[in-house]
C-alpha cells in the first residue's frame, strides 16, 4: 500500500514552511499519491464480486457500495468504478460520450483513468479491450473479447412508475411489471405511439425489466444476442447490472405498436454518407471569404443544420476509406 506514505508526504507538504513547490515535486506527487486505478483493492474486489453476481442474474439490479471518486456523482462514476475495477496494465481503453471520443466528459474521464493507471488508450473501437461509454453503443459490432461498460444515471426503469426503492425491489422480485405496461399503454393513447425516446425498457432473458441507459432506441437491438459482455454501472444510485454475451434482450412492445428505432430512411451523414448509423444534428456556421467561421447575426450568409454520425471514430474511419 502506498497511501500512508503519500499521506505523510501530503501532510509534510501542507505543514512545510515554504509553500513553493517545484514542478518536479508536482510530478512526483501525481505518481505516488494514488493506487493503480485510484480506488483501493478491497473496493475493486467488491465491484468485481458484484459484477459476477450481475452476470449470473442477467438484468438484475445488484446493489454495491459505490465509492466516492474525484468525478461528480451522476457524471459516470458507476461506469468508472467498473472500468477501474477491471482494468489491467495491458488493457487498451476507449472512452466515449455521445459516441464521441473528444466530448468534454469523455476527455475528463479518460484523463482521470490515464492519470491513475497510465493505460494505453485508443479511439478505435476494434482496438479497445474495454470501451466505456455514455448514451451510445458503438456502431462497429464488438467481439467476444471486448467489454462494453455503460454509465447509468437512473438504473431502475420502475422509477418512472414507482419512486420507492423498497416497493420497486419487491416488484422486480415478483416480476410485477404491469405498471410499466400501463405506462406504455397510456403513452400510446396520449401520443399515438410509445413515446419513450431513450432509456428504453427491455426484458432480459424474459425475467428482469432493465433500463438501457439514456441510449437512443437505435442502440437497443445491439443488446440482443450480442457477442460482447455489457456491464452497467450507476454510481450515485449504487447499482450494477449486466447483459452477458448471447442473452435474449427484448424491448417492451405491443403487437400493434411494435418497437421502432428513430432511423429515418434516406437520411445520411453529411461527412461519410452513411445511412445506417445514428445521426445527430449540428449547426454549421457559414464561412466568410477569409475562411473563418462567421456568425449569421453579423453578416447575411446563413449557416445551416447538418446530420453527422454520432460515433465520430467510425465516421472518420469511413471517411478515410472513401
Amino acid at each position, binding site marked *: 500500500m502506498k497511501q500512508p506514505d503519500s499521506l505523510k508526504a501530503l501532510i509534510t507538504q501542507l505543514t512545510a514552511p515554504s509553500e513553493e513547490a517545484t514542478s518536479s515535486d508536482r510530478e512526483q506527487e501525481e505518481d505516488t499519491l494514488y493506487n493503480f486505478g485510484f480506488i483501493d483493492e478491497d473496493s475493486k474486489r467488491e465491484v468485481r464480486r458484484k459484477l459476477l453476481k450481475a452476470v449470473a442474474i442477467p438484468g438484475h439490479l445488484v446493489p454495491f457500495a459505490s465509492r466516492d471518486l474525484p*468525478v461528480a456523482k451522476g457524471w459516470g462514476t458507476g461506469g468508472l468504478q467498473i472500468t477501474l475495477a477491471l482494468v489491467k496494465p495491458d488493457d487498451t481503453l476507449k472512452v466515449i460520450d455521445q459516441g464521441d471520443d473528444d466530448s468534454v466528459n469523455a*476527455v475528463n474521464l479518460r484523463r482521470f483513468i490515464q492519470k491513475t493507471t497510465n493505460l494505453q488508450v485508443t479511439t478505435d473501437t476494434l482496438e479497445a479491450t474495454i470501451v466505456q461509454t455514455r*448514451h451510445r453503443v458503438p456502431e462497429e459490432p464488438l467481439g467476444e473479447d471486448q467489454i462494453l461498460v455503460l454509465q447509468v444515471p437512473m438504473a431502475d426503469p420502475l422509477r418512472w412508475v414507482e419512486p*420507492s426503492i423498497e416497493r420497486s425491489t419487491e416488484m422486480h422480485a415478483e416480476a410485477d411489471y404491469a405498471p410499466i405496461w400501463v405506462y406504455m399503454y397510456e403513452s400510446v393513447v396520449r401520443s399515438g405511439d410509445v413515446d419513450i425516446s431513450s432509456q428504453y425498457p427491455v426484458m432480459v432473458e424474459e425475467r428482469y425489466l432493465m433500463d438501457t441507459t439514456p441510449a*437512443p432506441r437505435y442502440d437497443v437491438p445491439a443488446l440482443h444476442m450480442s457477442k460482447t459482455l455489457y456491464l452497467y454501472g450507476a454510481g450515485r444510485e449504487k447499482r450494477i447490472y449486466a447483459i452477458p454475451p448471447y442473452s435474449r434482450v427484448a424491448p417492451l412492445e405491443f403487437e400493434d405498436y411494435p418497437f421502432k428505432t428513430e432511423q429515418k430512411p434516406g437520411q445520411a451523414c453529411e461527412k461519410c454518407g452513411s445511412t445506417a448509423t445514428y445521426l445527430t444534428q449540428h449547426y454549421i456556421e457559414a464561412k466568410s471569404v477569409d475562411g473563418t467561421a462567421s456568425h449569421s447575426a453579423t453578416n447575411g450568409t446563413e449557416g445551416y443544420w447538418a446530420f453527422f454520425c454520432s460515433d465520430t471514430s467510425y465516421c472518420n474511419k469511413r471517411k478515410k476509406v472513401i
Partner: protein
Amino acid sequence: MGYVATKGGTEAVLKAEQLVEYFRLRGESEPIRIEQIQDQFRLAVDRAMGEGSLYAPALAALALKQSEGDAVEASFLLRAYRSTLPRLSYSLPTSGARMRAIRRISSTFKDIPGGQLLGPTRDYQPRLLNTLLNHESSQTVRRYLADFEAQVRQNSPSDGQVGYFPKVIESMRAQGIMAEAEKGAEEEEPFDVTRKAISFPAPRSVRLQILTRGDNGSLLAFAYSSIRGYGDVHPTLGEMRVGYLPVEVNHPLTGEVVEIGEILATECEMVSRVKSTNEAEEESSPKFGLGYGFSFGHGEDKAVSMAILDRVLSASKAGKLHGQSGPAANEEFVLLHVDAIEASGFTAHYKLPHYVTFQADIRVLERAKDHATAKSAESAEKHRRFRQKLALPTEADEVERIMPDNGEDEG
C-alpha cells in the same frame, strides 16, 4: 463543403482548467495560507469536514482554498481523497458524556445537573456588520488575545475536571420519562455506508451516517419542513453540547485501549412526546422519544436538524401516531436526497452533452405532433359534420359574423 473541426474537446478542457486558475489568482492579492483558513474560517472548515466525511482540518482548509470557498466543492474534494485512504482501524465507541465541552445547553429545564454553559455562540449577538474588522491587524489581534487570557487567568477555577458534564437525557431516563431504545439494535455492529451497499428499509446506523454526512442546507430544509407544518412531531432540545471527544482504538499488538487524539464535535439530543397507536401501551406508560444529531466540528444547525429528522424517522418507522405525515417522515425520501455530493452531481449532470438523447427526443416529439395534428383534424371534421347535420352556420361563417372582414388591412 467545409466543416468546423469537431476535434477540440481535449484542448477546451485543458484551457478551461487554466482559466479556473487564472480567475482564482487574477486579483493578485496575497495568497491565503492554509493555516489562516483553518484558524479564521473555522466553521467553513468544520462544514467541509462534516460533508466530506473526513476529520482532517488541514486537508479541509486546503480543499476550501482550492475550491475558492465553495462548500460543496470542498467537501467533494475531501470525499474523493477519503476514498483513497485504506481503512486501518475502527475507533471504539465513545459517549457524549466523555466530551470536554466548551458549550452545553438544554431547553428542557432551567437548571440542569452541571448547569448551562453558553460557550462560544453568536446566538445572542445582534447581527450587525462589524466594520472594525476592516482594520484588523496582527497588533489588534495580539492585544485582544493578551487581554482575554489575562481575564481568564484571573477567573479560572482550579478544578481539573472542568468541562465535563452529566447528560441531561440520562437524568430524564432516571426519571423514567424516556422510552428505552430498542435492545439489540444498539449492540449491532454499525453498518458502514461507505463500504457496503444500502437497501431499504435501512437500519438506524445507516440513517445516522447518511444524515451526519448530509448537506447542511438540505438537513435544515427537511427538518424545518417537518416542524413548520409538514409534520406533527413537536420536539424540545434535550441537550446540545460542543466540545472535544477522545478518539480511542485498540492497540494493534497489545489490544489495550489507546487514546490517539481528540476531535471537536457537536452533539444534539432532541426529545418529543410520541403517542402510540397501541392504546394499552399509551395508557400504561407515556414516554418521550429521542432523536440524535452529531456533526464534526462546531456545527449546531446540522446537529439540531439531524436530531429532529432522526426523531421524526424513528417515530414514522415505529408506526406511531405522530410522525406519519410530511415528506420528512419518509425515510427513503430524506436519506436519498440529503447527500450534497450526490445531489449536486446529478443536478449538475444536465450540463453534460445530451446530443444523442435530445435527438431521440426530437424524433418522438415529431411523432407526437403528427398524432396531435391528425387527432385535431379528426375532431374538426366531426364538429363540421355535426354542424352540417343540424344546419348550423360553419365556423368560418361564425368568425365572419363576429369579426366582419372589411377586406382592408388594418393600420
